[in-house]
């Protein structure tokens, strides 16, 4: 082109104005529109981000279940089961029985051992040992006695026996307040043992469909809780 002074100043500007230029750059594009080909030909960050991750951090928390669900602790069920233990003669809600959890039994065992601390006896090891031996023995006995199509797992036995430990916990806390010695104390202990074993055997007999064997199941439970009563009283 000729560079005469007249031509230079007479050229018409055909490029984009400054406003248009600014528009191009505000959309996140790094190149002016004249150089924008098909968006598929070069990288545009917006198109490669998945819509979920690109949103906030809340969605990441929703993928994992809440902590109590993961631990299997369901306070509603725990409360219902505790109520059914406290009242063994009321009909229990069978749906809660299938939910096998060990948190309630653990709490009750620890509470029992702590109540023994109040009496000056440090028997954590004995409580643990008796619970272990008792539940293993009880589940073996139930598996041998019940019909083969209704097996009973150790965890289920632990759960039932642990929940029905609640009256023994009450007994041991009460024995700190009232000293149970002598004949009267033995009668009270026997009442509590019977309370625990009736609720435990009721749960076992209904869930394992043992007909005419409830007393036979109640007796080993009574022996199991009798050991705890011995630990409390003597």
């Amino acid at each position, binding site marked *: 082109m000729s560079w005469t002074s007249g031509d230079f100043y007479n050229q018409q500007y055909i490029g984009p104005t400054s406003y248009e230029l600014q528009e191009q750059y505000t959309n996140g594009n790094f190149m002016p529109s004249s150089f924008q080909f098909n968006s598929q030909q070069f990288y545009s960050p917006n198109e490669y981000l998945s819509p979920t991750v690109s949103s906030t951090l809340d969605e990441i928390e929703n993928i994992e279940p809440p902590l109590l669900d993961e631990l299997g602790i369901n306070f509603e069920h725990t409360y219902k089961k505790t109520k059914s233990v406290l009242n063994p003669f009321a009909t229990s809600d069978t749906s809660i029985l299938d939910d096998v959890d060990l948190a309630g039994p653990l709490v009750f065992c620890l509470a029992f051992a702590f109540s023994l601390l109040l009496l000056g006896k440090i*028997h954590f090891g*004995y409580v643990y040992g008796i619970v272990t031996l008792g539940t293993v023995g009880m*589940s073996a*006995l139930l*598996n*041998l*006695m019940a019909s*083969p*199509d209704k*097996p*009973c*797992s150790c965890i289920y036995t632990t759960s039932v026996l642990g929940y029905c430990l609640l009256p023994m916990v009450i007994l041991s806390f009460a024995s700190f307040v009232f000293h149970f010695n002598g004949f009267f104390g033995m009668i009270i202990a026997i009442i509590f043992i019977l309370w625990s074993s009736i609720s435990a055997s009721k749960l076992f007999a209904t869930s394992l469909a043992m007909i*005419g*064997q*409830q*007393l*036979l199941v109640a*007796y*080993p439970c009574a*022996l199991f809780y*009798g*050991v705890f009563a*011995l*630990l409390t*009283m*003597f």
Partner: protein
Amino acid sequence: MSSRGPMRLGKNYPHPPSQQQQPQQQQQPPSQFYQPTAPYPAANNYAGDFGMPQPQIPPSYGGDFNVPQPPPAPSHNAFFSPQTAFYAPPSQQQIPSNQAMPGMEYLSSNPLFNVGLNVVEQGMKDFTGKTVNMLPNEMKKSISSIKYYFAVDQAYVFKKLCLLLFPFRPRNWSLGYSADEPVPPRVDTNAPDYYIPLMSAITYVLVAGLVLGTQDRFTPEQLGMHASSVMVWNVIEICVLCFTFYIFNVQSKLRTLDLIAYCGYKYVGMIAALSSYLLTHSLFVYRCSLLYVSLSLSYFLVKCLRLQILPDTGGSQPYGSNGNKRRIYLLLLVVILQPFFIWYLTRHLIVD
């Protein structure tokens, strides 16, 4: 399908009808090979068995030196072989094959013995959460034979307890059988069980703890010590009795598992004696109850075991006539051991 061991089933005793003759013949040679004393004259053994084939004679007699027998599974174990514990019809030993067997109808009529491999598998799978194929066959058979002893119900337990404490009423003491298998305890009051011995042994431990507690001698270790002593003395007693059966070469239909049950009934008497002492704190009452409990337990055991150890009076004499005296002595030994243990296991709990 005789079980080999100290409690050997007599050869001519009416066995469970062998539904398959073949497997019985195959089962017999290994056990006869290891039998210490052959009840039959071993004339057949010397008849041309060195290299001469004898197709007619069943391989039990002539084939011992010819035919290499596969080593039997622990059936030749002297004392505690699972096979002595397993008193079952031969059809149940063919468990790996799942065909319908002619013996199965006897099994199915008795629901307790209807524990086939699949049922045990299912139960154990739910129990342990793993597949049960890892369990050996012998264990499954033992579990099913032990299950027989736990098939009890409340009425049976009540009747048996009353019987243990007062057996002097005239009654029929014979065991019931259905198709030559013993009927489960739920049906027959005379059958032995394991529920009462087990529960009474644990109750004994607790009552001992209670007695010690009233004497201010209780610590939780005492519970463990009493439980261990119960177990150990039981084991010693069963060992002594099995050894005596073996030494005397007495073949009776009493199984080892039955003997364990009968030896466990003494704990009921022990608890009765201890409770009487606990209630009255009087040595005289304790000694009287000890005497009464010993008498009633001895009477009970004599009546129960007489039919099993002593030979049948009406039948032929398969056991030999001079075996009778040994059997009587054996019965007396069983019966005298029980009061001795009752006294020995309670005396340290009694203080003047």
